């Protein structure tokens, strides 16, 4: 099989094949509006199944599913920080620091809504949230989340670290989609920056003297936050085997270094099981 010749064969009936396959081509590099970029994301799918394997392409339905799932998580984070800002729980000395994160989360909501709409989908509406994790009763285990800054930052850390895991777990569904996957990875990186920043803040404020900007698990427990209620959010972070290589036995590092060097994914089902019925009110 000669794949180069296949391209030439297609070119005979579709002179635009090169541009379709590679959105970076000069012919379209000047299209800079966001809507156009997203429209390009859907283009490879128009080629049909021939390149399905090459692009590992998911259906538009699958992509919209991931995006609406991501939007749901961003709604939660944006609501959390917006409520925190409005409540006065954030001390003045940290207001700019938290405002940076709040601003990013609100932008993620707007961005994902625009992407979904641009791809012909309908953005989901925001669920109802209970930031105390009380499933709409308002008296859950984090009932002082908007009055006690220590609780607020502990919940913030759980949301950010879980957000990182969620985007990571969804990425393979977007395999090969240059625009949407790159956007998802780029939000993923920002959530990780936030997670690092919240962890540093918790350390520097003395909320947790041992917390690091990265997740340092033990062989018995993924959760390094000292908050047992969120053990489930860190389950699996204790993994030390990557790509078939046991980092501890084969490469001789400690469990702490092995776990901190790699963040672990969660599936959509795992993430929703952690949130629905507590922070996300059961529909």
């Amino acid at each position, binding site marked *: 099989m000669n*794949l*180069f010749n296949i*391209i*030439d064969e297609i*070119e005979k009936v579709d002179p635009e*094949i*090169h541009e379709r*396959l*590679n959105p970076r081509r000069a012919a379209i590099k000047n299209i800079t509006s*966001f809507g156009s970029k997203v429209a390009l994301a859907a283009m490879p799918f128009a080629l049909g199944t021939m390149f399905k394997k*090459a*692009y*590992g392409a998911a259906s538009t339905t699958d992509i919209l599913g991931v995006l609406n799932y991501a939007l749901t998580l961003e709604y939660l984070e944006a609501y959390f920080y917006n409520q925190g800002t409005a409540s006065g729980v954030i001390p003045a000395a940290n207001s*700019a*620091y938290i405002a*940076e994160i709040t*601003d*990013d*989360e609100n*932008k*993620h909501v707007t*961005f994902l809504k625009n992407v979904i709409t641009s791809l012909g989908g309908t953005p989901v509406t925001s669920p109802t949230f209970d930031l105390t994790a009380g499933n709409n009763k308002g008296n859950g285990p984090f009932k002082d989340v908007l009055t006690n800054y220590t609780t607020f930052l502990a919940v913030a850390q759980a949301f950010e670290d879980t957000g990182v895991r969620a*985007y*990571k777990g969804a*990425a*393979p569904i977007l*395999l*090969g*989609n*240059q625009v949407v*996957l*790159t956007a998802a*990875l*780029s*939000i*993923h*990186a*920002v*959530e*990780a*920056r*936030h997670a*690092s*920043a919240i962890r*540093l803040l918790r350390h520097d404020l003395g909320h947790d003297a041992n917390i690091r*900007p*990265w997740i340092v698990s033990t062989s018995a427990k993924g959760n390094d936050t000292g908050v047992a209620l969120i053990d489930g959010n860190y389950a699996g972070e204790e993994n030390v085997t*990557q*790509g*078939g*290589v*046991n980092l501890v036995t084969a*490469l001789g*590092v400690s469990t702490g*270094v092995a776990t*901190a*060097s*790699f*963040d672990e*994914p969660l599936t959509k089902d795992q993430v929703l099981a952690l949130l629905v019925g507590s922070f996300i009110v059961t529909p």
Partner: protein
Amino acid sequence: MKTETNLETGGVNMARRSFLRYAGAGAAAVAVLGASSCRKSDYYPPTDTSTLPHIDIGTGDIGILNYAYALEQLEAAFYLQVIATPYSGMSSIETSYLTDIRDHEVLHRDFFKAAIGSAAIGTLTTDFSSINFSDRTSVLTAAKLLEDTGVTAYDGAGYLIQSADYLTIAGKIVSVEARHAALISNLLKAGSFADTDQIDQNGLNKSATIAEVLAGANGFLKTKVYATNFNYPKV
């Protein structure tokens, strides 16, 4: 077509076999991507760069893994030097953080070497002559550059990866690099963990092409890294 069957030959243990089981599919897939940017009718062979000392990352998913391996080699070498010759006034908590990061980057480096196996590029020779390792600002500014570049590199190359397993592994590493990047930024300037130099107007981390990243990274390398199958150097 040529496949990377050499990966399945002698000396490759079972773990590595498992890790690389998608290598063949990856190579085939990237041939399509390569073809898309080099149609037969206007394809020109690369200019002869063979006389310059360089290492090429290769093709397909292995090429992307080698790209990551090259960047992790660079980061590991940098932090090994940072800890070996601490800048004046390095606080105990800074020493602790930078030692952690050194350990993470060394592990990333060693992991890629083990995982890629016989298809791995060789050991790179670094050139940090532009960095003053006794000066905090010089060191942290270089650290920020390396970490930010690492994040933009993984984010920008993710779509080129054909194997879901490799993509997940890249994802596992890039979020740790982003954690490093945010910390280093905060050490340089409190609250700068997601500043406009790295985050765009949509709240997204910036991303960069292989060509953009290598053009910068090669400034720290005596042995230059090329990616001729990914448009670097440009022909």
